[in-house]
């Protein structure tokens, strides 16, 4: 089938999509956007989190056809040019990136959290990110990064 959707602000069409493919597969293998990661492909790890019409979802659980005509934001669309988004910069500054495989999904989920809640409390951060597994950091520096990003984004408003 042919799939047409808007990815990071650009309309994209791809042909010969097999109906069994996920949005994650299409992004990674057909659109050249491998930033969203494939750690479990069953909706448990959050590493493929993208925003679908503004809501965070696991791209591995979205059938390609469900994305028809919709708006998708991936980690590749978070920043323009060389400047980083404050969430990206905060993850770097806090040392929240080790292997980095969970990072794209966490960045998308974190930006959604801060956009919705401004300066979330620690329990709110933990609840919001409970679907994003990280195996390297023990999450402490991810907590630091989210707090830092929320502070910076609040200061920018």
């Amino acid at each position, binding site marked *: 089938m042919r799939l047409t959707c808007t990815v990071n602000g650009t309309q994209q069409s791809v042909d010969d999509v097999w109906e069994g493919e996920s949005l994650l597969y299409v992004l990674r293998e057909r659109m050249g956007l*491998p930033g969203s990661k494939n750690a479990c492909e069953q909706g448990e790890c959050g590493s493929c989190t993208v925003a679908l019409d503004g809501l965070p979802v696991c791209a591995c659980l979205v059938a390609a056809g469900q994305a028809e005509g919709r708006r998708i934001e991936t980690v590749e669309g978070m920043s323009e040019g060389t400047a980083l988004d404050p969430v990206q910069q905060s993850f770097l500054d806090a040392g929240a990136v080790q292997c980095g495989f969970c990072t794209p999904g966490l960045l998308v989920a974190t930006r959604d959290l801060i956009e919705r809640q401004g300066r979330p409390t620690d329990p709110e951060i933990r609840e919001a990110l409970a679907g994003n597994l990280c*195996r390297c950091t023990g999450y402490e520096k991810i907590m630091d990064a989210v707090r830092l990003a929320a502070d910076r984004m609040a200061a920018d408003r």
Partner: protein
Amino acid sequence: MSTPTRTPTGAPAHLTGPGGGQVGDDAQRPDGVLKVRGEFAYGSDLWMEDMLWGATLRSPHPYARIRGIDLGPALAVPGVRAVLTADDVPGEKVYGLELADQPVLAVDVVRYQGEPVALVAADHPETARLAASRIVVDYEVWEPVTDAQTALGHPTWNKVHETTPEVTELSRESAHLHPEGNLVRHLKVRTGDPSPTADVVVVNEYQVGMQDQAFLGPESGLAVPTEDGGVELYVATQWLHVDQRQICSALALPPEQVRLTLAGVGGAFGGREDLSMHVHACLLALRTGRPVKMSYNREESFFGHVHRHPATMRYEHGATRDGDLVYVKAEIYFDGGAYASSTPAVVGNGGTMGIGPYVVPNVHVDCYGAYTNNPPCGAMRGFGSVQTAFAYEAQMDALAAALGMDPVELRCRNAMAEGSATPTGQVIDSPAPVVELLRRLEAMPMPGAPGDEVDLRDMPGGVSNTTHGEGVRRGVGYAVAYKNVAFSEGYDDYSTARVRLEVVGGEPTATVHTAAAEVGQGLVTVEQQIARTELGVDQVTVHPKDTTVGSAGSTSASRQTYVTGGAVKAACEAVRAQVLSRAERLVGRSVPDLRLTGGAVVSDLEGIAVPLVDVLGDEPVEETVEWRHRPTEAIDPETGQGFAHVQYAFSAHRAVVDVDTELGLVKVVEMACTQDVGKAINPQAVVGQIQGGTAQGLGLAVMEEVLVTDGLVRNPSFTDYLIPTILDMPPMRIEVLEYADPHAPYGLRGVGEAPNISSGPAVAAAIRAATGLALRRVPVRPEHITVEATADR
């Protein structure tokens, strides 16, 4: 040197920037910006226009003979380009890290569920998987051997929380899974009086379940056939050169025709030390003449790499009434599963360090590694020391209870210090601040008790709303551990570094080239920091990791900052010596205090400051150095005595837990950790290692276990194999000590593993303290708490 026709999308590039960050600074990762932009390419992101996808058919049985394989139905699937079996392996049919006993593809017999039997290459990953599933294998199913003691013909003990088979006396001949029998290694430690007596004796049996590394980036890579008949493999791995050796052997190709480049690695933790898809992708690429990508899904990943050895242990501790340890006897069984992997070295660690960081005059340890038909077990962070720490630290608590002593007091009374002898007769010749680690933990403030206003998120069970505090009891537990750093027992453990200093774009620039795998830990940052510090330049480029430079050894055993760090330092020193002598030729005389700093050659005594760009001109300086830590020795096979380990790392944890004693649910309230790192090369990364290691230890204590019944894995998914989430991990207090090891570069100590060893036993101790239960098995599951509690009533 073979050259691929083309380079895949996602092949690693040189890492430059960010500038700044000497040894001791919180330098930022050179791959950090790529990672937060989603532009860092992992093995699973590699891509080529005409690539094929590989898939693996695996055995559904833990033990069976293959009577026949029909490939026809797979070959009939449109889009399939190749289907291969063991007959298509041109070289050695078996490989292995320490013993070559594991088939590339099953030869006549399968010895574990998930053993690779056949391969498919097709133009879509689903086509490849579908075709693999259509291969018809005729199995004669055999009864699996699923217990290490049974496999060795030793009597089994009554295991906690498990029904065990009858005690058997199977002879090695009747049950043997490999020609040499089922014993992979038996390590003995014998010191002091063989028949000691003591005032107070505690004896207990312990069990540790099988843990998975659960790195997030799946096993993956891309093999590209080269014009000279060789292959270029881009792969996420831990040790390029040991992979290359095994791949060459299986493909019957010389190293010149098998070039490896490290693809982006999404975590490792030991699980990438053995081969997974490496040879398979190369076989398919060579057969089809096309690039072949393989990338496991999560279920396949659970079958595609080794796990942490489950262990069954019996410990007997004897002490005087005053609390001085008199003796320790231990019997330790590691279930190695179907193939050896690194079981011999795991047994080495388990046995030599199996009583913990304590001084004990009389020690008698037997540590066994056995073949069974369970999943193969090998390296995982903490490597043989994690399992024993659960037992020896529980024993210290049990002994303290029997003596009526404070558990920390008992530990401090018997703790190792610099100058102490280990049970293997090795005198500790660098700081061993075991007492200080424990005392500092004790001095840290305790987390507050839950307030009057209940926040469900702080309760065991969380927002499942299972308790508002009723039935909840708090417990505190301590544990301390030690672990060897780098490879031991006489292994020739070295790393190679090539450092080039030249003028690029008007700036003095260093390029560091090693084959040391960056798996997330931050070695690439450390390499830059060392080069900046030693060469006085800001711009340091990290060359992609590949086999065009000599081996760096494995990214394991907490060794890379020490060994590859040492090699980079040594190569920089060699470069520096050349640059300084060039500068002396330039000024026409010898200058005693000449050094490199701020991009210049400087002498304070003579007021010289010559810019490096002038000294270098257009002639780069390059040096390649092979660097070794001081040698270790093989241990005596009968007594275990010898200088086995080059360095030890020490860490201690305090865990505070709340337990819902009615439902058996555990909430870890806080983890505190103290660790001596000798010298923190990158303090932020050191703390990151401690936090991550703590999480993996906590996971093993309360939730992580690969459940294996009759040789079959019951939970190969992240739905059923649980790792800690951000809700499970509590805040941590961390104190990093820096007592230099005079034998190590910059005085540093390996960091990564120790905190993974002490955290779990502290959590288990805290649960015991909260519940008053024995809990001799980890992970502690809710039903262990509720069932034991019921039995106690």
